């Protein structure tokens, strides 16, 4: 078909394009789409049928526990743990990224070593280490290095399961975020730094005012991804007997033996929260790509006083 059309093209067929408009068009058929629809429809029907008829799903039990105090309390703890661990990860991650890019070789290598260690060992193992830290350091003291201590305390009173969970998740997350932040900072054209230097700005101001606002576009999507991932990773903390969502469910089914319904209950909540976070991610990403949308029309809310004055005079002069 294509070749014959190409052969016809150079010939002076002035009537050909006009004729093409009038001829009926036979749409391309997609038979395999119909086959795939059928296969998926059958599989879906089988699954839905089993959801309804298989009593082991225990939907009545799910309904009973979905809004129970213990599950909701676990959900609240999961959300808090996610927030605090991410906050720790972000703060430490920024510091590590800046250290990594520092001209100071000691800082740069220290950061490298940290990232190497915390990315190189499983987060589950790290959580266990924090949980069992008292076996390694039974007591913690503050004092002169290698000298006498002034303040001494039992490790277990300081590193409670909550603290172990926050440290385990946050310190691990920091290593990943540090690499995301470093990539974002390095993605900005070197000319931006030079232009800012030429204006007399110092490194800290260049980072804050010029580099970071631009790097955010590169940094935010993977950071939001990691937040969603963190929400689910908090379930590992159940091993430290910290009553987050999964452990709350486990505590219930260890007594009632309604294992599957409670795992479903927990899964529903994880899905709900990750869905909400995904929506939030969309809006945050849109916010940071705003300078792509060219002219600042309709952005009067963010204009400075002078710009607003100008806008008013423009309108007055041009009668727009």
């Amino acid at each position, binding site marked *: 078909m294509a070749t014959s059309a190409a052969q016809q093209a150079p010939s002076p067929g002035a009537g050909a394009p006009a004729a093409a408009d009038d001829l009926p068009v036979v749409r391309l058929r997609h038979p395999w789409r119909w086959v795939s629809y059928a296969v998926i429809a059958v599989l879906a029907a089988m699954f839905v049928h089993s959801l309804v008829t298989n009593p082991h799903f225990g939907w009545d039990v799910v309904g009973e526990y979905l809004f129970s105090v213990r599950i909701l309390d676990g959900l609240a703890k999961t959300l808090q743990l996610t927030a605090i661990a991410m906050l720790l990860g972000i703060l430490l991650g920024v510091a590590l990224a800046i250290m990594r890019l520092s001209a100071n070789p000691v800082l740069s290598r220290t950061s490298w070593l940290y990232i190497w260690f915390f990315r190189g060992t499983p987060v589950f193992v790290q959580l266990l280490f924090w949980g069992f830290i008292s076996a390694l350091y039974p007591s913690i003291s503050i004092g002169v290095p290698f000298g006498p201590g002034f303040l001494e305390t039992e490790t277990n009173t300081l590193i409670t399961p909550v603290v172990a969970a926050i440290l385990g998740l946050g310190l691990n997350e920091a290593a990943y975020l540090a690499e995301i932040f470093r990539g974002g900072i390095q993605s900005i*054209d070197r*000319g*931006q730094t*030079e*232009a*800012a*230097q*030429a*204006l*007399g*700005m*110092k*490194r800290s*101001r260049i980072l804050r*005012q*010029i580099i970071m*606002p*631009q790097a955010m576009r590169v940094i935010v999507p993977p950071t939001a991804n990691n937040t969603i991932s963190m929400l689910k990773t908090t379930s590992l903390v159940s091993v430290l007997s910290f009553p987050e969502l999964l452990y709350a469910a486990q505590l219930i089914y260890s007594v009632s033996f309604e294992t599957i319904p409670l795992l479903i209950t927990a899964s529903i909540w994880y899905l709900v929260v990750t869905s909400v976070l995904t929506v939030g991610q969309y809006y945050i990403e849109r916010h940071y790509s705003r*300078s*792509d949308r*060219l*002219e*600042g029309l309709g*952005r009067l809310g963010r*204009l*400075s*006083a*002078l*710009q607003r004055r*100008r*806008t008013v005079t*423009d309108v007055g002069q041009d009668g727009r």
Partner: protein
Amino acid sequence: MTAAVRPMVEARNVHKSFGHLEVLKGVDLQVAPGEVMTLLGPSGSGKSTFLRLINHLETLTSGRLSVDGQLVGYREERGRLHELRESEVAGMRAQIGMVFQRFHLFPHMTVLQNVTCAPMGVKGESRAEAEDRAAALLEQVGLSDKIRAYPQSLSGGQQQRVAIARALAMQPKLMLFDEPTSALDPELVGEVLDAMRDLAASGMTMIVVTHEMGFAREVADSVVFMDGGVVVESGEPEQVLRDPQHERTRSFLSKVL
């Protein structure tokens, strides 16, 4: 020293190497206050590197370079050169404006914010003060109507004029132009050269690396031809461009004129 005016820029035997590659092999030149100097030369002749040494975007390897009597990057004390701290380097750069080939406007800021960010952040000017001067400068370069636009919505010529206004907002005593029209479409070159011509007429000291022979001939007070990391020839535009004394200058000019 007493009778002569102190030069705005003075280079003596300036060398610059990148690893084993020696880019500048002993540059000597002087720029008087109010002088407009154009630096010509084939690519790789070291002219852009020399320009970047002046505001310490590159560090010189040896020699002496001073701006307005102040050494660039170093402080001389008891017969020794001490490297300057970051804040001292920044303070020196704040007095020297620079315009780049590829503009390097800050894309996340409006035109107005681009022009006001350094006066407010570096010099601590009030918003009103910085915005009033920015408005005047943008009017001077003919961009009053673009004050709230983002750089991406501007043409190359408009972006470069904003970049000139941004540099001037710091009220520099010296302006460096690194091939300011080389990244522009031909029809946009004129508007940028016009802005530079106005600036030259206002008495600003300017060093311009360029391939625009028309600008060199009409606006510049002096022309310096560099090749292979040294100054081959320098003098008044008429003399260097019409009657070059060196073979290398002649062969370069025959290619670009």
